[in-house]
């Protein structure tokens, strides 16, 4: 493998890790506040559809992004109503949201565009274009560092940079602000937060809506930047890989970035090479597909450093018993 192949592989790792990272940070906010969310997949999917649909109709990708975020927020609010207000089972609510998105996107896509559940291909202003970092062109001639800067770091869509900037932002919000402290507290011991006179319901709705916002950006990235348009079930399990990455990272932002880059790399390798020859042994492509899930199970099993979720996760908060 030569240097340029490695650069290309890492470049596609960054692209593939971006939606995972956004969804993973989305889940981080929700689960740190004590609301389990296995509906990341559904929220990404509906955002992917509405962003592509609005971008296709208006020709403006920014309007598409807004529509995607809006639709994802609607599903996030539904999750909030079911799991916070009506104290329903958060896991079942997540399952319902995934199916709702899978069905509705195809139904509406067929009604609006009659193309078998897809949107028209996005052209021109309907897509996020590559965003060049300063001096990318002129520095590309520099050996080693030049290609790394101009090929690997520069030339992604603006959403990629937003995703990676969201990592320190998430860290700062969760660990350096009053809101973050309360949000983490509500995921560990909501009764204590309630006693301090802070609204448990309000905080949890806040967290769930931030989760919706980030899932919305993730979905929009899939349909308007990574690919040009929506196709049926285009999230293809990414919401669950993000969930796996979240557990792998033990609910911490910087580790989440590491986990998403690792899983992105696995996807990039599986995409580029079919079967890999390693010293006489052939690793089948399916093993690469399954690896993120296997790693997560191993981490969950606690054989390699135990993953302990926020203590109040999954339990509805009842003020008085």
């Amino acid at each position, binding site marked *: 493998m030569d240097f340029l192949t490695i650069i290309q592989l890492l470049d596609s790792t960054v692209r593939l890790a971006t939606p995972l990272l956004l969804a993973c940070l989305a889940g981080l906010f929700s689960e740190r506040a004590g609301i389990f969310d296995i509906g990341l997949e559904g929220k990404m999917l509906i955002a992917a559809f509405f962003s592509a649909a609005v971008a296709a109709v208006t020709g403006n990708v920014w309007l598409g992004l807004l529509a995607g975020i809006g639709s994802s927020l609607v599903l996030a609010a539904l999750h909030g109503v079911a799991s916070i207000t*009506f104290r329903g089972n958060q896991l*079942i609510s997540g399952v*319902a949201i995934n*199916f709702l998105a899978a069905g509705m996107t195809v139904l509406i896509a067929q009604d609006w565009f009659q193309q078998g559940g897809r949107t028209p291909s996005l052209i021109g202003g309907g897509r996020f274009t590559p965003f060049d970092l300063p001096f990318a062109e002129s520095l590309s001639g520099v050996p080693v560092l030049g290609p790394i800067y101009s090929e690997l770091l520069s030339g992604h869509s603006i959403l990629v940079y937003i995703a990676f900037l969201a990592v320190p932002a998430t860290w700062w919000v969760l660990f350096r602000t009053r809101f973050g402290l309360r949000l983490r507290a509500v995921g560990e011991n909501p009764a204590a937060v309630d006693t301090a006179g802070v609204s448990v319901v309000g905080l949890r709705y806040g967290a769930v809506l931030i989760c919706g916002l980030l899932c919305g950006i993730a979905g929009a990235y899939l349909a308007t930047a990574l690919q040009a348009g929506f196709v049926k079930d285009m999230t293809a399990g990414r919401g*669950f890989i993000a969930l796996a990455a979240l557990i792998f990272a033990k609910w911490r932002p910087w580790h989440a970035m590491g986990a998403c880059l690792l899983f992105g790399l696995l996807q990039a390798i599986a995409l580029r090479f079919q079967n890999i020859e390693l010293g006489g042994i052939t690793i089948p492509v399916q093993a690469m597909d399954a690896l993120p899930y296997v790693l997560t*199970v191993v981490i969950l099993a606690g054989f390699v450093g135990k993953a302990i979720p926020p203590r109040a996760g999954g339990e509805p908060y009842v003020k008085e018993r």
Partner: protein
Amino acid sequence: MDKMPKWADVVLIPLISLILAALLSALVILGIGEDPVAAVKLMVDGALGSTYGWGYTLYYATNFMFTGLAVAIAAHAGLFNIGGEGQAMLGGLGVALVCLLIPWPHWTLALVFAALGAGLFGAAWAAIPAYLQAKRGSHIVITTIMFNFIAAAVLNYVLVNLLRPEGSMDPATERFPEAVHLPSLHELLAPIGIEFSKSAPANVSLLVAVGACLFVWLLIWRTPLGYEIRSLGKSEPGARYAGISSVRTIMIAMLISGALAGMMAVNNVMGEAERLVLNATEGAGFIGIAVALMGRNHPFGVFLAAILFGFLYQGGAELALWTSIPRELIVVIQALVILFTGALDNMVRMPLERIFLAMRKGQN
């Protein structure tokens, strides 16, 4: 004192949830410019109007009975088995191996061992998440989701690299031998003079599914093991205090659950396709969640809910054939049923409880 009579909990709440889901689905159909009344008529005609329609409805219902029971029995132990899909996939592998590797003299013998193979593979696939939950406290929902994806990868590998006949491009096994062909309802009913459609896929596994419903009912409400499972589901500290081993009970409940999900393969792999293809389960593992919620985790409820979903599935296929409504409408209905009977249960329950309380006060 209960806030509500039992019949309200068992019948009224699921019924109201179902009506809410149906009303919203009607709105969705209106929204895409079709007529909901005509759609329902078409669905009823297509799914129940002929023995051909019934044959498909019952075929789907058979799948959903197995996966619904799998979710239900885990739910009795307080576990949410979302891995029915993966367990059913592995069950398919078990059926395929049994049917392909051993020359069976007669389908009855093959059926027994295929069901055993399917159950064994399904149970094995549930065993690791069960063990991790019981011993290491790893959340079973997350591990079973992960195992669904791992199952898909395993099946893909086995079909592409190991079981695919030489020269075939299709990632599927070769056809099972003629001797393991399961009699369809047509072949079963013809000798007693009942005409049933020849081309519908419903087959003898329907009887196996009904038997499984009966078995689960007996197990849950008529055996000590069932009592232990229910105790654990109600309260783990309570069960532990009564001397019930939570590790043992979790393992057994999940193994039975996985075996039931796996046994679905007798219907779809052995009864219908007669070979193992990729994505043979077609999401039936997930529909089991809706079926179990709708049927209130009771085997008879699961039986009825499975037939309801079988009807929706066949009706939905007819809709997709004759109107511009895509099949995905069924996925939306399924989502709404899960939402209302599962996550938004309290939204229906709380006002009802208030009404019943007010009525009781009026009587005293």
